[in-house]
């Protein structure tokens, strides 16, 4: 689960990492009130779960409360990479002498947390990694050893930070960020930029924060931060129904059982010359109700022109899937063409059930590739 900047900063502040004071605003009026409370110049920042908001005009300096209201009016409703701005973070403006970068990420390959620190902050870290690899200090923590101060020293010396005051503050921030990373079950905690003010104070000016969905059950305060309204309507419906669903750009609705097979189904549709409308995983179980729910999600997308149902039965039983499809057709009166390919456990029985009912818009194909070709054909 990705958090907004201000939510991540709340968690930073809770961990003792210095951040600027700010207020949440969802209307220009609230932005004005926030700026009044804070006093002086403020920054009005779009809260969106995507990058590049600065370039898109989503971050603006405001001299006073009236200006904050005006800037809020400009930013609210902006579409930034498909994300519409509904929330603003109004924050006391900072004087910035230097911009650093600090993150702890979950390194899947090494199976260890990875620290990264560089004095080249404020830009995309991938760019730094590519263009100035020597400027980027990287170090793994050992999950059993936990944080040790030497790790922070290696990062600080490695990044070439030599001001003793900065060293001391950043050492403390790294220690707190590690604690925060572990305690919140984070997959990513990033501070970019980590600024140094002209007075030498070090502070987190932005946050990027991702929490492990599987661990949310023990962080109810973080789970509550989810902005349900911001999700794509289909994805929101899918979440309610407990279906794994990712919206894509094309016309062929895709439903598979298991993440790998579903991904593969998306590929095969592309190989067959089509454009997938979504990725939808029925999961390992896949009973009749699951099929109904998944079809409901997929058909709620107006872009979908045909549905490709790709099932390889294991735990999932072909007869159950067939019954689910028939039940869905009955309940929802789907008129879109549905192409189905059924293999594995009880596949024969499933195909028999479908052949018997023989709904007019249902096409049964023997292989993945043939089914994909048929679905693509039917979508055009």
């Amino acid at each position, binding site marked *: 689960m990705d958090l907004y900047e201000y939510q991540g900063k709340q968690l930073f502040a809770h961990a003792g990492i210095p951040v600027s004071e700010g207020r949440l605003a969802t209307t220009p009026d609230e932005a004005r009130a926030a700026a009044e409370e804070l006093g002086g110049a403020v920054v009005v920042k779009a809260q969106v779960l995507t990058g590049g908001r600065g370039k898109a005009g989503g971050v603006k300096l405001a001299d006073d409360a009236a200006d904050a209201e005006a800037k809020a009016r400009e930013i609210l409703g902006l579409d930034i990479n498909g994300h519409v701005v509904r929330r603003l973070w109004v924050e006391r403006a900072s004087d910035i002498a230097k911009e650093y970068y600090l993150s702890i990420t*979950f390194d*899947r*390959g090494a*199976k*260890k*947390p990875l620290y990264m620190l560089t004095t080249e902050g404020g830009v995309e870290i*991938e760019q730094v990694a590519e263009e100035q690899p020597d400027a980027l200090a990287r170090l793994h923590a*050992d*999950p*059993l050893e936990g944080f040790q101060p030497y790790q922070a020293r290696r990062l600080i010396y490695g990044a070439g930070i030599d001001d003793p005051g900065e060293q001391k503050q950043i050492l403390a921030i790294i220690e707190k960020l590690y604690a925060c990373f*572990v305690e919140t*079950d984070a*997959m990513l905690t990033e501070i970019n930029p980590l600024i140094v003010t002209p007075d030498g104070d070090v502070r987190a000016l932005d946050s990027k924060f991702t929490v*492990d*969905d*599987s*661990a949310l*059950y*023990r962080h109810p305060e973080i789970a509550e931060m989810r902005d349900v309204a911001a999700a794509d309507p289909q994805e929101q419906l899918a979440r309610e129904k407990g279906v*794994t669903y*990712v919206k*894509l750009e094309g016309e062929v609705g895709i439903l*598979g*059982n*298991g*993440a*790998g*097979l*579903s*991904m*593969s189904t*998306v*590929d*095969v*549709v*592309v*190989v067959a010359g089509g454009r*997938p409308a979504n*990725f939808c*995983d029925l999961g*390992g179980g896949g009973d009749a109700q699951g099929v109904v729910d998944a079809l409901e999600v997929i058909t709620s997308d107006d872009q979908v022109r045909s549905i490709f149902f790709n099932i*390889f*039965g*294991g*735990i*999932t039983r072909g007869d159950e899937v067939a019954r689910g499809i028939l039940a869905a057709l009955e309940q929802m009166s789907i008129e879109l063409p549905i192409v189905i390919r059924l*293999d*594995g*456990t009880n596949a024969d029985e499933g195909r028999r059930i479908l052949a018997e009912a023989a709904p007019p818009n249902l096409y049964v194909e023997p*292989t*993945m*590739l043939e089914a994909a070709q048929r679905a693509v054909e039917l979508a055009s």
Partner: protein
Amino acid sequence: MAIIVDNDTRLVVQGLTGSEGRFHGLRNRNYGTQVVAGVTPGKAGQDVEGIPVFNMVADAVQETGANTTLIFVPARFASDAIYEAVDAGIGTVICITEHIPAHEMLRIHAYIRGKGVTMIGPNCPGVLSPGKANVGIIPAEIFSRGSIGLVSRSGTLTYQIGHELTQLGLGNSTIVGIGGDPVVGSSFIDILERFESDPETELIVLVGEIGGDEEEKAARFVESHVTKPVLAYIAGFSAPPGKTMGHAGAIISGSSGTAAAKKEALEAVGVQVGTTPTEVAQLVADRYATRT
């Protein structure tokens, strides 16, 4: 021989009295696996169709000589179950449970590595050595005995490829589903290493997907350590960046983790990569045809 599970496997099922544990535990036994015990706290003395149930893994080990565990307990209790098994002296842990928090797996992985324990999963379909033992939820009837080692991050995709191989008359030494989570107990490399030294395995099929760099690492390992032919399939060529595709591991971040990059890395070390399950099965069949 086969790898990880075979005729010497003496299996304890943690969570045997739950509905999934019972269903698959019995299914594994019906296949021929020696399922010697179940563990459910508070249910010692009961049995599941003749399989004795114990309160603790330590008791199961002592009383039945269990050496392998199959874990079906819910995610919140799964870490505890893994530690319990390992500390009771179990050498092979196969964990089906999904949604174990990734940080817990980080610690478990570091802990059990130091003890020489083999772990498969979590969030995996298990391990099947056709004709010998099936530990997990893989539908064994799709597969036949043979000399192809199959290792995969994905369940149903593995079945699909196994199905295609079987239809081409090809069989498997062992099928290993390593799981799709960010941190799994065994990586591609661990399994490749075992297949390389398994005399029954003649050819290896690796089934990867987008996200992470496990396939790239596997490619480097193949180059330096694997003499047997390796073929691969990668799922997710059409996946957009930044979206999690079902598996927690299946996300493309930035410029890395794409299927194209993985394909390139594998092909660079001589591993043929199919872009559909059908294609990879055909490539395997071709390889066998030219060998004999």
